[in-house]
C-alpha cells in the first residue's frame, strides 16, 4: 500500500473512532479552503480584466447573477 493510502486509512479510522472530535477539525479545514478561494477572487477582481478572468475561470454565463460581486 502506498503512503497516501496509508494516511487516508489512518484518518478514516480516526473519524470512525472519534465521532465527537473529527468534525471540528474537518470543518476548520474545509472553511479555510473557502477563505482562500474568497481571498483569491478578491485579488483577481483588483487585477486588470479581473471580472473577465472570473467569468472565464468559473464558467459564468449568467453575469447578472453576480453583479453584486463585481460592484464591490
Amino acid at each position, binding site marked *: 500500500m502506498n503512503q497516501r493510502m496509508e494516511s487516508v486509512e489512518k*484518518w*478514516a*479510522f480516526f473519524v470512525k473512532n472519534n465521532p465527537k472530535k473529527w468534525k471540528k477539525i474537518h*470543518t476548520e479545514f*474545509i472553511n479555510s479552503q473557502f477563505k482562500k478561494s474568497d481571498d483569491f477572487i478578491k485579488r483577481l477582481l483588483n487585477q486588470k480584466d479581473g471580472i473577465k478572468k472570473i467569468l472565464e475561470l468559473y*464558467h459564468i454565463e449568467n453575469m447578472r447573477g453576480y453583479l*453584486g460581486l463585481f460592484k464591490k
Partner: protein
Amino acid sequence: MKREANKSLLDKFCTDFCKIIEKHTDYIIVSGFLAVASGRPRGTEDIDMIIPRINFDKFEKLHKDLIKSGFVCMQSGNPKNIYKLYLKDNLSVRYTYKDKPLPEMEIKFAKDALDEYQLKTKTKLKLTGLDVWFGSINMNIAFKEEYLKSEKDLEDARHLRIVYGRMVNESEINEIKKMIRRLRL
C-alpha cells in the same frame, strides 16, 4: 446548537439548497461531497445532485423558488434555456449563492436505470450530521471503484469502506458494479 456551529460552509450551502429542492422533487447527493461530508479531508468546490426527470412546469417552479431563496444559475437566468439547452439533454447545470461563484451545486436529471436505482435507494447518513438525502454508501463505493477510478476516487472509496464499516455490503456492491458495466462502460 453545537452541531450547527460545527457545520462547514459546504454543509450549510448543501442544506440550504436541499431544503428548497425537497419542496419540489426527490433528490440525492452523490460522489465527492458524500465522502467529504463523511470526513474525507479533501478539497471540493462543487456538490453533485441527481433529480428525477421532471417536466418544464415543475422545473420552472423549482427554479423560481431557488432564485427567491438567494441562489442563481451560472449558465442562465432563463428557466426555459436551462431546461431546454441543458437538463433536457442530460447536461448538468450549476447553481450558487447569488454573487458568490463558490461553492456550486451541480444538478442533473436521472438518465438511466442506474440513476433511478440510486434515487430509489437514497439514504440519510447520521455520520454527516446533515439532514439531506444521499446516494447509498454501496452505490457510491461501486461508482468510485468501477467507474470513476481516479486516485482521488479510490481514496474516497477506501475512506467510505472504513467509516461506514458494517453498512458496506459486498454482494450489493458487486451487483451495482455489474449494472455499471452493463449501462455505463
